[in-house]
């Protein structure tokens, strides 16, 4: 196999809580190349925290420790502030859940995309503008002129996510982290946004970390799936082998979701075990 794009070994993250230290991420180890990896978990599983740890975006009070945390040859554990700025946004990018909150409401869409470009590339206004339009077309926005001059509250949710994707991919990162990118969108729009992400990721041969609570969605979209529970990875499998998952938590999650086409009197209920936390 090629040298992995991202490699984590024994990542541990601890926070200072009101009642003592909270061990949010425990001994998490995995690696990935230029593929689509889905991280699935419920609230409190640590899926979002691990993505923030990779980007060095945890609060200063958080203690991050790892035997290895390497991205594309760079050791993420020892980066300084200015070195992080080289990595963040430029080589690793993140798309978040709700464009209403992740886009700056007082700047036009065009201005934000241009800013994203000019932060990481020395370019003139015309060049940045041209690139921005290219990106808007790449994310399949049909009237890029209107969207370029619009404010975030003037565009729909699906459009906003496309803009987010354009902004985050304009510096051509090697890795994209998508944190619940479709959870705030209507289900008929979800597929289109996922297509855009799929297209961009395969075209640029990027790695994708797709964080979600929706196991079914991740199994149809990603190549590999990691399932997290209370800060640990409890299962790792190929997406097409999900139905053969072994860990009781994964099987429990699969069993308790209602599905179209299946008629059950009662939904299965997850019986949480202490043992899963160890």
């Amino acid at each position, binding site marked *: 196999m090629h040298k992995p794009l991202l490699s984590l070994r024994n990542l541990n993250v601890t926070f200072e809580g009101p009642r003592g230290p909270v061990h949010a991420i425990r001994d998490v180890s995995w690696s990935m190349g230029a593929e689509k990896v889905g991280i699935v978990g*419920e*609230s409190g599983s640590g899926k979002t925290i691990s993505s923030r740890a990779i980007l060095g975006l945890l609060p200063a009070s958080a203690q991050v420790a790892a035997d290895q945390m390497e991205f594309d040859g760079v050791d993420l554990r020892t980066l300084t502030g200015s070195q992080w700025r080289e990595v963040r946004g430029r080589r690793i990018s993140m798309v978040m859940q709700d464009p209403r909150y992740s886009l700056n409401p007082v700047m036009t869409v065009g201005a934000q995309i241009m800013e994203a470009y000019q932060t990481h590339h020395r370019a003139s206004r015309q060049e940045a503008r041209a690139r921005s339009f290219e990106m808007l077309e790449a994310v399949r926005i049909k009237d890029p002129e209107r969207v370029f001059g619009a404010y975030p509250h003037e565009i729909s*949710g699906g459009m906003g996510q496309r803009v987010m994707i354009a902004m985050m991919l304009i510096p051509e990162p090697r890795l994209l982290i998508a944190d619940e990118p479709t959870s705030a969108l*209507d*289900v*008929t729009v*979800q*597929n289109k946004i*996922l*297509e855009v992400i*799929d*297209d961009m990721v395969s075209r640029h041969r990027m790695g994708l970390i797709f964080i979600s*609570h929706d*196991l*079914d*969605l991740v*199994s*149809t*979209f990603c190549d590999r799936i990691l399932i997290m529970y209370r800060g640990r990875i409890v299962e790792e499998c190929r997406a097409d082998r999900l139905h053969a998952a072994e860990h009781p938590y994964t099987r*429990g*999650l699969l069993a*308790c*979701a*209602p*599905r*179209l*086409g*299946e*008629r*059950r009197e*009662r*939904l*299965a*209920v*997850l019986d*949480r075990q202490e043992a899963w936390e160890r």
Partner: protein
Amino acid sequence: MNNTDTMVDVANLDVRYGAFHAVQDVSFRVGRGESFGLVGESGSGKSTVLRAMMGLAPGDAARMEIGGVSIAHSRDKAFCRRVQMVFQDPYGSIHPRHPVDRILAEPLGIHKIPDAENRILRTLKDVGLGPAFRFRFPHQLSGGQRQRVAIARALITEPEVLLLDEPTSALDVSVQSEILNLLDGLRRERGLSYVMVSHNLAVVAHMCSRLAVMNRGRIVEEMTREDLNAGKAGEPYTRELIAASKGYRPVKAAA
């Protein structure tokens, strides 16, 4: 379905906010003990229909009856006893400063229902929370527990109809299955009638024997659970919705 057994009867409901026509000409019926689903995406008007039924939205209908009694113009205290609502956000639907005991005692106080102590304990048990939860505050409860308290509050006056506005959308999948089982069980035991709003087709297919699909304020199609599970949909929008609910399907890129 027997006409005398109709619990909820809505005909030609219209809701307008100024020039905006949020709900247009919506009609449906729900029988006693039945669960009816309203499915749609954001902006479809499904939640507005519930709010119009509760009097929280400016609705105008040819007929709006609960158990044969018209509610089109006024909603008195008796109505409040018979129809209750469970909201979507467990973190916003119970008062942050009141303990569970007070939250449950309040409806009893408003309707002057006696024997509060026993009713509170019994209702807590019915929703799967023991007496240990009685004096806790909402910030000491998880999302699922809060939703149980919200359901308990809705049930404590022994209503006949429950309006459920996306009751599990904000909950984890494993908590959702517990809450859905609870709601279903309560409906069977008490013969409640549900009108359930959701954007999640799978949840509605599990919970409701009949459902209506809404788009842009109108009912596009009404169907049964069996039809939905079999994928038998007449309207193109419904078909699109069903297909989209099945996860990601890559479309062969057209140039």
